[in-house]
């Protein structure tokens, strides 16, 4: 039993952090037309093999596990990476056609994320994406977007564009079971943990240098204690994320309960930290040029996919857990 990244896991996390801070820095979101994963970023990520982390070797993947998947998406979250990255990785897992799978793993073809919304669907991701992925706790389906009726909507979150889809064709392929949902939950939870960590880092750094009344604000307890609470909630969400991704890797019977808990804790920790981070920055925290609102808006989006509060908690209430 061990519950912290070690050895190869830590190396992969470090490599992902270095690569993403270069290829996908959060600062990009201050420029125009910054939403989504465009074709060149997709090709770059594909070249590095990042879409194939949790894909078995026999199917052209790296043969790594849910743990590396979570470690990677936590780094994606720290940079407010677009949700298309997760859609692409999940779709590569879904594909039974080798040809399509290779194109997805290589980033040659793009995938956007579909989310049910009443009679319609919401579409998150690049206009360059040819495919849409819809994942539910019961099954997952891949659609061609070529003829789908899509309508652009103004998006709150600069990291992802937002469309409404009123009709979808028959899926290109589908798979039953909760496997993709679980990987999606872990990916989204990991991104949220990354956002919580990024928000905490921002305010801790600022609290050391911003002075009022002749002292750094980090010396005031109203600030210190709020930071301590952020740190605790983030730590709890991270510990549960490690537990849950390892439980999935080891195919434990209670993995889905641990994943639900991980998503719930990540939802709460990220929203709490993103909120407090803005407040504790004062006026600068509400400006467009600051990263604080980017973290909040992306967290809002992520809390809406792969399980939000009510659904997660009602599944969790009577869930049985193993030793």
């Amino acid at each position, binding site marked *: 039993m061990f519950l912290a990244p070690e050895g190869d896991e830590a190396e992969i996390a470090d490599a992902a952090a270095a690569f993403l801070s270069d290829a996908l820095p959060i600062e990009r979101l201050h420029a125009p037309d910054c939403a989504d994963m465009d074709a060149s970023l997709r090709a770059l990520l594909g070249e590095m093999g990042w879409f194939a982390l949790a894909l078995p070797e026999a199917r052209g993947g790296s043969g790594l596990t849910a743990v590396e998947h979570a470690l990677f998406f936590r780094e994606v979250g720290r940079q407010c990476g677009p949700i298309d990255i997760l859609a692409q990785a999940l779709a590569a897992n879904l594909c039974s056609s080798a040809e399509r799978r290779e194109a997805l793993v290589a980033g040659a073809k793009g995938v956007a994320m579909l989310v049910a919304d009443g009679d319609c669907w919401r579409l998150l991701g690049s206009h360059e994406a040819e495919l849409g992925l819809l994942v539910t706790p019961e099954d997952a389906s891949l659609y061609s977007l070529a003829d789908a009726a899509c309508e652009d909507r103004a998006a709150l979150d600069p990291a992802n564009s937002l469309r409404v889809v009123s009709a979808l064709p028959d899926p290109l392929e589908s798979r039953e079971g909760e496997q993709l949902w679980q990987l999606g939950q872990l990916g989204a939870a990991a991104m949220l943990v990354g956002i919580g960590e990024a928000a905490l880092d921002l305010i801790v750094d600022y609290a050391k240098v911003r002075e009022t009344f002749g002292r750094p604000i980090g010396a005031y307890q109203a600030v210190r204690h709020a930071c301590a609470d952020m*740190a605790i909630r983030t730590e709890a969400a991270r510990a549960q994320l490690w537990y849950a991704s390892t439980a999935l890797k080891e195919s434990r019977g209670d993995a889905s309960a641990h994943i639900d808990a991980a998503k*719930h804790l990540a939802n709460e920790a990220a929203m709490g930290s993103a909120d407090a981070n803005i407040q504790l920055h004062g006026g600068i925290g509400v400006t467009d040029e600051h990263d604080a609102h980017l973290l909040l808006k992306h967290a809002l989006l992520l809390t809406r996919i792969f399980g939000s509060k009510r659904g997660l908690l009602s599944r969790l209430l009577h869930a049985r857990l193993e030793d």
Partner: protein
Amino acid sequence: MDLRYSDEDIAFRARAREWLKDNVPQERRPASGKAASQFDRDWQGKLFENGWAGVAWPKEYGGLGLSGLQQVIWYEELSRAHAPAQHISTAYVAQMHAGPTVMARGTEEQRAFHLPRILSGKSLWCQGFSEPNAGSDLAALKTKGTVDGDTIIVNGAKMWTTDAAHADFMELLIRTDPDSQRHKGLTWLICDMTTPGIDIKPIRTMLQDDHVNMVFFDDVRIPLANVVGEVGGGWSTALATLSFERGLGFIADQLELFERVGRAIELAGTVRLDDGRLAIEHDDIAQRLASIKADTMAIRAMTLAEITETDRTGEPGPKGSMMKLMVTTTHKALSQLVGEFLGWGFMEFDGDRATNPWTHDYLWSWVFSIAGGTNEIQREITADRVLELPKAR
């Protein structure tokens, strides 16, 4: 990362479960008085005789020499088996921090004398750190010690000393250098509670008990040989004690919380509210219970992460304060919620945890968030040591 238990871990859990099934005391623990401490001594003695005491203590000091993870397994099995609760046991201080402090900082003679007595339940300990004017600010303590030949003469008063009336020994922190300030000039002593000149006055609490006390020292002579660490170096020994208290001290409660939330969910499935529906059928109650359950899952994950890390490095990290905050706030949220749906039964309380554990836990939530360093102080420590923010003090 992995969640697998070794074959030894699995066998250990099975043995523990089997033994506890037949050996957990069936009779209620008396709520207070000598009968309560005798019960605790007997239970600890039984654990010792049957080879269950000091799971993670080294073999050379009479422990089982097992891993921190096996210690966790043991606590999990204890709470599942409804064994006597750790946090109200009068053996708590001895097991959780006095023993470990003597082990880490004591002399060979001190270890040889005290550790077997602690493990077998023969000696109970109390903690004489806080004073009327030194709680959060422990380094403001004034109880005075004067070295006289091979003894130290102690004068002053300690406050909030839990179970002083039952304890055989005290962790006594005093100022031996009258000119010293703050953290300097302190000394950590083993005080035999039968020494002449000690007077114990109980303080009645909101839990309707007399467990905490004021302890007065009037020319109490303690052998110099009872100093743990150096004369004048007591702060360093005290920090070791506090790190055991805040680190390992809450493990049993952390894991018990996980069991307790399951019992609360069961309870909510049996209690009818005014509108005739079961408590669990109310969305807000069900949601809050599930959210607390998620928190206890995270607490367990944090505990396992911390313990398995410590098993490798040999040293606990700086996260004990975060753990204590997480545990005390979750404990409070759970007992508050149960109080909301339990109805009038919650208002019946005779001071005995055995009759009404939920009300006792509710009242205990303030003990939890104040004793052992308040939640505000734990936030301070987290801000200082984990986040390295500028000092407030």
